[in-house]
């Protein structure tokens, strides 16, 4: 830890390059309320590079709110966020996107009128540099740029096995496929950290297995750090490296799946009650 700090202080050549296993994102004493409701109450935890971190907890525990804090949708009233060595009061969505945080939503938030392909291409927005003038001309630099990104997007389409729905407006796709396209759009951003809000909710067993496979492969092959909210305990225990447990806006446990499973407070508050 001290080593990493020293590196940052010395202004290392690539301050953004956090080595695997080190903390890439730290949330400290986050407090977030809506009117009288405390959605998050003094929660601190860290996300380590290259891991799969699960956030679990009963309904209304503040899990989704936590993701919203991480990518800048919600501004916490108290606390701070340290991301890639930089400490701030709150994230800005644009800043988060630019610095490699991508996410999916609990209630799918796709661009419904656009095709699968266009949804994924939109995910590469920040990587495209040609201005409106070149885009209006199209043939030339803008087309070359489109094609480079089209190829990248096609690799994701192959990876997620969604070739057949490339041209389909996503509003017409079944739920399970929409979730998959949303993952694809997040992957198109080539994120360092991927936030997944209940990616397997409402899926059948087969779809869940596919989704688990994708998440694991993304993590292993691209080294993408994954923060995942999931209700299915089997899935959580199987794929995550560490688990953070929230209950009524408070963190009640934090550790490996085995530690968390054995924790009496978790058993009382969560496992014992709702599952």
């Amino acid at each position, binding site marked *: 830890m001290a080593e990493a700090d020293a590196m940052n202080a010395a202004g290392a050549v690539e301050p953004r390059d956090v080595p695997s296993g080190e903390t890439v994102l730290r949330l400290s004493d986050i407090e977030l309320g809506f009117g009288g409701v405390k959605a998050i109450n003094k929660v601190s935890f860290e996300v380590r590079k290259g891991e799969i971190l699960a956030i679990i907890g009963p309904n209304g525990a503040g899990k989704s709110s936590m993701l919203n804090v991480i*990518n800048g*949708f919600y501004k916490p009233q108290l606390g701070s966020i340290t991301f890639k060595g930089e400490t701030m009061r709150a994230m800005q*969505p*644009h800043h*988060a*996107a*630019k610095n490699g945080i*991508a*996410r999916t*939503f609990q209630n799918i*938030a*796709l*661009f*419904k*009128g*656009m095709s699968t392909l*266009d949804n994924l*291409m*939109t*995910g590469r*927005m*920040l990587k*495209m540099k*040609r201005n*409106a003038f070149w*885009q*209006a*001309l*199209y043939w030339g630099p*803008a*087309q070359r740029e*489109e*094609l480079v990104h*089209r*190829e990248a997007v*096609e690799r994701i389409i192959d990876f997620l096995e969604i070739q057949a729905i490339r041209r389909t407006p996503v509003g017409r796709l079944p739920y399970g496929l929409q979730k998959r396209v949303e993952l694809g*759009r997040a992957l198109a*951003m080539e994120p360092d950290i991927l936030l997944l809000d209940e990616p397997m909710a409402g899926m059948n067993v087969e779809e869940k297995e596919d989704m688990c496979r994708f998440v694991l492969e993304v993590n292993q092959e691209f080294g993408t750090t994954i923060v995942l909210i999931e209700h299915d305990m089997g899935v959580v225990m199987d794929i995550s490296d560490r688990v953070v447990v929230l209950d009524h806006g408070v963190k009640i446990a934090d550790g490996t799946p085995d530690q968390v499973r054995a924790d009496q407070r978790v058993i009382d508050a969560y496992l014992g009650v709702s599952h």
Partner: protein
Amino acid sequence: MIYREAGQFKTSYAADQGIFPIRLDRMGMVALLLIAYLAIPAVANHYWLVSILVPFLVFSMAAIGLNILTGYAGQLSLGTGGFMACGAFAAYKLATAFPDLHIIIVLLLSGTITAAVGVLFGLPSLRIKGFYLAVATLAAQFFLIWMFNKFGWFNNYSPSGVISAPPMHLFGDIYITGPQSSPLVKYLFLLTFVAIMALAAKNLTRCKIGRSWMAIRDMDIAAEIIGIRPLWAKLSAFAVSSFYIGIAGATWAFIYTGSVEALAFDINRSFQVLFMIIIGGLGSILGSFLGAGFIVLLPIFLNNAPGLVGWHIPVDMLAHLEFMIFGALIIFFLIVEPHGLARLWTVAKEKLRLWPFPH
């Protein structure tokens, strides 16, 4: 020959990204251009050129503009008339203050001025949406028309408030505006100009900027986490849209009617263009043309068709009939097919593509 995509394997993403990936569509486009450039000039009479084709092209330009804002970026606007007036008066001030400017420069500059005005009136869109934004653009509409009527500076203090296009050369001895201009020249010039502008619009809508507009339209929250700035996406849509609408207003005043007063661009004009994109198809460049054609042609059709089959409908009755048909069609398209004629056209093509084996 049968309309098929089977057997046409696309060997590159470049081919797949084309505007007309299917060969027959490309041939259709070439045929359309041949008709527009060769057949129509050969057969069209003065009436067709002046009263149908020229206004059709001007309206198509306006419809493309509104479609960018409303169809692609999802920002409902009732200010189209006001922005057209803005383009018309900007062109008039430019052409009278700098008589040596070429018509194309005048058009592009008046589009640019209108784009700036559009951005200004687009600022409320950062805070308000849907119905409330429509009301804000309505305020822009009334304000602009009021302003052009109120201040004599805009019409060079003409007592009637009417502005008339000074005679302008296209090149050499050929006039595009004023009494010496010929309808055929106007038609061919507008055809070329609108075709190029439509192509540019198509290109924008299939590139990054177009996707940012649609993303804001479909799900602004998700757009933001991808890194799209709502401010930039919305204001760029207002700018590009107003650019097109401003040019449409300028060509209306200079090339279509030759002289015009601000009232020609009142709220009715805004609704007329809005109906065009609803009937033609929201979020479709092709639909902008179809809608413009439909609304230009329908009254003419209603005036003539009953006579051809021996019916004689009184004139006032015809006017009512026109309103009723428009009303019914708009309700139909809003409820049944929000993507308009353009969508019906694609569906028909999809059917044809699979025919005779549906699935």
